[in-house]
C-alpha cells in the first residue's frame, strides 16, 4: 500500500512541529489556514469572530500537536479542534443550532454525489450561506475535504446515521437552491 507524496509531506510537517523546528508551525499554519478559515466562516457569522476562533485554535494546536500520535488522524483532529473552539466561542447559540436535527429517514448519500461539479464552486459558496447550520457544516466538510461520513461523525460528535441523514437533506436542499438559481438565470 503506497501513500501519496502529499500525505507523506503532511506527516513530515507534523513531525517537524513535534521536533520543535522553528519554521514548521508557520508552514503548518500557512498550509491549513485557508480551508480552516472557510470552515469557521460557515459556522461563525461575524468575520472578526472567525479570525479569533482560528487564532485560538492555533494556540491549542501549538499546545497539543506533540500529543498527536497518528498523523493520519490529523485532519479530523484539526477540524474537531477548530469546531470545539468555535462552539466555546459561541456556546449557547451554536450548540442550540448544531444539535437541531433534520426530519426524515436515514438514506445512503452516495447516489447524490454528482450534486455539484468543481465549476459550480461559486454557486455552492453562495448557496452554503443560505442553508441552516447543520446542513452547511456537513456540506462544507464534504466539499472542502471530501471527508468520509465516519470522519464527519467523529468531528461533529454525532452518530454516523445522523451525518448520513444531514447529508441527504443538505444535498437535497442544495440541489433545490442551485436549480432555482439556474432557472432564475435562464
Amino acid at each position, binding site marked *: 500500500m503506497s501513500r*501519496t507524496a502529499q500525505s507523506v509531506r503532511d506527516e513530515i510537517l507534523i513531525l517537524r512541529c513535534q521536533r520543535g523546528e522553528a519554521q514548521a508551525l508557520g508552514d503548518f499554519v500557512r498550509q491549513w489556514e485557508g480551508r480552516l478559515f472557510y470552515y469557521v466562516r460557515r459556522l461563525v457569522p461575524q468575520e472578526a469572530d472567525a479570525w479569533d476562533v482560528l487564532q485560538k485554535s492555533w494556540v491549542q494546536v501549538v499546545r497539543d500537536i506533540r500529543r498527536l500520535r497518528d498523523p493520519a488522524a490529523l485532519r479530523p483532529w484539526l477540524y474537531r479542534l477548530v469546531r470545539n473552539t468555535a462552539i466555546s466561542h459561541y456556546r449557547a447559540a451554536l450548540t442550540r443550532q448544531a444539535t437541531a436535527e433534520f426530519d426524515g429517514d436515514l438514506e445512503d448519500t452516495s447516489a447524490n454525489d454528482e450534486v455539484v461539479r468543481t465549476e459550480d464552486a461559486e454557486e455552492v459558496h453562495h448557496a452554503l450561506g443560505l442553508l441552516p447550520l447543520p446542513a452547511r457544516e456537513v456540506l462544507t466538510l464534504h466539499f472542502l475535504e471530501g471527508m468520509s461520513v465516519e470522519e464527519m461523525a467523529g468531528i461533529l460528535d454525532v452518530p454516523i446515521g445522523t451525518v448520513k441523514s444531514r447529508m441527504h437533506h443538505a444535498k437535497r436542499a442544495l440541489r433545490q437552491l442551485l436549480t432555482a438559481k439556474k432557472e432564475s438565470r435562464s
Partner: protein
Amino acid sequence: MNGNKTEEGGLGDRLANLERPTPSLKERYAREVSSLLELNLSPAQRFGGWFYIASILILTAVVLIRAASGATVLTDTWPLVPVALAGGLAFAAMTAYRLCRRSIHRLHDEPYLEAMNIGGLTLVAVTVFAMGVRSDDRVLRLELIGLSMLFLAIAVVCAVFVIVRRYHLETRRKLLDIELALAELAERLDGPKKGDDR
C-alpha cells in the same frame, strides 16, 4: 465514500479561494498568529538577560582571580561554589543564545525546558551530594547521599526519555524522507494520484 474525491478536492480549493477576508482583520490575525509563533523579547527582558550574563561572568572572574592569587575563597561549603558557578554559567550560555536570536519560538521552549529540567535536577543532585559528603553526622550524610542518588536517577530517566523520543522522531523522519522520495518518483512515473489536492 465517494468516487469524485479529486473533483471535490478541486472544489475545496476553489471554495477556500472564494472566501474574501477583510484585509484589516486578516492583518490583525496575521500579527497575532505571528506573535503566537514567535515571542519577541522586550527591551527589559533583553537588558535583564545581558545584566545576568555580565554579573555571572564578573563573579566567575572574581572567584578565579582570587583562587589563583591564593586568597581564601573556599569556605566550609566549598563544593557549592563551583557547582553554583557551573550552573549559573550554563544558564547564562542558554540566555545568551536566546538573546542573540532576539526571539523565542514557542515550540522551541519544550526542548529548552527539558534541558533545564534535566540540568536542574542534576545540579540539585550534585549539591545535595556535596552537602552529604561534608556532613559530620553519619546518618544525615547517608540520607543526603541517598537523596542525591534519587535526584540523579530521576534526571537520568528524564534524559533517557528525551533521547529516546528524539531518536524515534529522527528515525521516523529519515524513513519518511525515503517514503517521500519513492512516492514522488511513483507519481512522476504514473502521474499525480487522486486526492492529492493540496
